[in-house]
């Protein structure tokens, strides 16, 4: 089969009994998948049957895609966090190709670079159902304003996609979104950590092994000590899955992080606010940097009934733990008390606030030992 060169607006039918791979060659741009369902709902790709993401490819196993999914839209967008001094235009040599996964037969190519006209976020292709077959349409239309505009065109609100992105582990920074968000808000409760790894001095061996193109994948983590109204205490920390917390159950706070972006978030379930007493939010610096200064750390608090706050560490100390703020839930009004304190270890911070967690390595407070 001849390889089709897809241009904007063109569509092709693809056999529905196979698995395809859409590979993206988009250098420094980022991308993601938006799922439209029969019931009219739209969301970012989570763990849907039949669709998976591997490196810079989307695997589409058409027979396995649930009937409820009507359309998949793959978007691409400039990575604004990497803007700055550029010598080479990042949009040259961008392309995508659609191939049959099993016999590696190419179905279509898209030359992206020559079809962009200044947009920084475009819907690249749609894969959609039409009369029991699957079709692919090349769109290549988008917005100069950036990804948030594109997502808004799908009906995402800034809150909904910030949360969706964090939990789906999608690949873009929502820095802009969080900053736009203004003061009072609408019941959404989250604490978001963003940073740039721009000017910090790499101190780890990684610098020598990975070369200059590498950007440390993630060098900060967010977490909190919590205390519930019933006295139950513990820790949530984005470093291990078992410390992720829980949104719908105790402790009603869950941490999530984007895999390829500097974005971490604690989500608090506002429905269970009455079960929370207080929590101590912290950020820890992992390997790879030696100063808080160069990281442009920003921790954004979006809590119901409190005006939004943005906190950053102001210290020259290199202690790896930044105690960000204490949040008190026990009065009618939620209070955020900024701390800006630094600690050598979590156990030291625990001691300073008399939280009383037990420390053997990092562990949950008073783990029950039953079985």
């Amino acid at each position: 089969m001849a390889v089709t060169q897809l241009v904007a607006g063109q569509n092709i039918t693809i056999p529905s009994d196979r698995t395809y791979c859409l590979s993206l060659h988009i250098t420094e741009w980022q991308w993601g998948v938006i799922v439209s369902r029969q019931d009219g709902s739209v969301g970012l790709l989570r763990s849907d049957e039949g669709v998976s993401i591997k490196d810079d490819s989307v695997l589409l196993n058409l027979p396995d895609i649930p009937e409820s999914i009507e359309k998949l839209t793959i978007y691409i967008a400039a990575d604004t966090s990497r803007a700055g001094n550029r010598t080479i235009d990042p949009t040259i040599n961008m392309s995508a190709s659609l191939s049959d996964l099993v016999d590696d037969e190419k179905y279509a190519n898209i030359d992206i670079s020559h079809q962009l006209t200044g947009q920084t976020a475009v819907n690249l292709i749609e894969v959609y159902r039409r009369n029991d077959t699957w079709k692919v349409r090349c769109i290549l239309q988008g917005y100069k304003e950036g990804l948030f505009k594109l997502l808004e065109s799908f009906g995402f609100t800034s809150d909904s996609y910030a949360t969706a992105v964090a939990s789906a582990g999608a690949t873009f920074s929502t820095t802009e979104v969080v900053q736009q968000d203004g003061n009072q808000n609408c019941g959404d409760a989250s604490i978001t950590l963003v940073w740039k790894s721009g000017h910090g001095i790499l101190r780890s061996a990684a610098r020598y092994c990975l070369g200059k193109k590498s950007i440390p994948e993630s060098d900060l983590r967010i977490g909190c000590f919590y205390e519930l109204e019933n006295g139950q205490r513990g820790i949530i920390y984005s470093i291990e899955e078992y410390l992720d917390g829980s949104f719908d159950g105790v402790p009603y706070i869950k941490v999530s992080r984007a895999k390829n972006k500097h974005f971490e978030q604690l989500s608090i379930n506002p429905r269970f606010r009455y079960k929370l007493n207080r929590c101590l939010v912290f950020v820890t610096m992992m390997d790879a940097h030696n100063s808080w200064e160069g990281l442009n750390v920003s921790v954004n608090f979006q809590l119901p009934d409190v005006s939004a706050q943005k906190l950053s560490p102001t210290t020259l100390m290199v202690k790896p733990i930044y105690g960000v703020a204490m949040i008190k839930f026990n009065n009618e009004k939620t209070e955020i008390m900024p701390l800006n304190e630094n600690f050598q270890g979590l156990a030291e911070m625990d001691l300073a606030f008399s939280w009383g967690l037990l420390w053997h390595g990092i562990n949950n407070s008073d783990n029950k030992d039953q079985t």
Partner: protein
Amino acid sequence: MSISLEKGQRISLEKNGSGLDRVCVGVNWGAIEKKGFFGKKKVAVDLDASIGLYSEDKTLADIVYFGQLKSKDGSVVHSGDDRTGDLDGDDGLDNEIVSIELGKVPAKVKSIAIVLNSYQGQDFASIPFASVRLYEGTPSRVDNIIADYNIAHEDKFNGSVSMVLGVLYRHNTAWKFRAVGEPTDDKKLESLFKTVAAKFL
């Protein structure tokens, strides 16, 4: 409408001819109120909902409990350990929720037992209110309550700290649920899972 289940009752988890993708089991309970010299005092009640996944030969393939909140295959997820129950009366919300994605449960797992035990050993009869419901939906959204039952204030629970709530099992290609609601003599989760294999599968 939900069915208030009786012991031994079986229901098929089908809707419009196809099986449900996901069911949740929620447990809602309250702290014990005790009268003392200085008025009333709340005593925490630490109930623990746990899940045992059993293979055909009734061996335990995996468990989900407060110390392991997710099954190895990811199909069963526990919402987290609540160690007190509702302190200010019934809030109508589940204190612990276990969600089960039926389609993701590995083929070798033939039955899934849902059990409850009282960690501090307070017997079920002393708990002011406790109920269990099986529903369609997600932990944050109850779409349709399939079945529920009350477990407090029943004489048969006097003196007992462990019980079997029910069993989800494969019947041909579909899943069914059998309400059990039976106390056992076990004091610990480990032996409770053994009792389940011996008597309730």
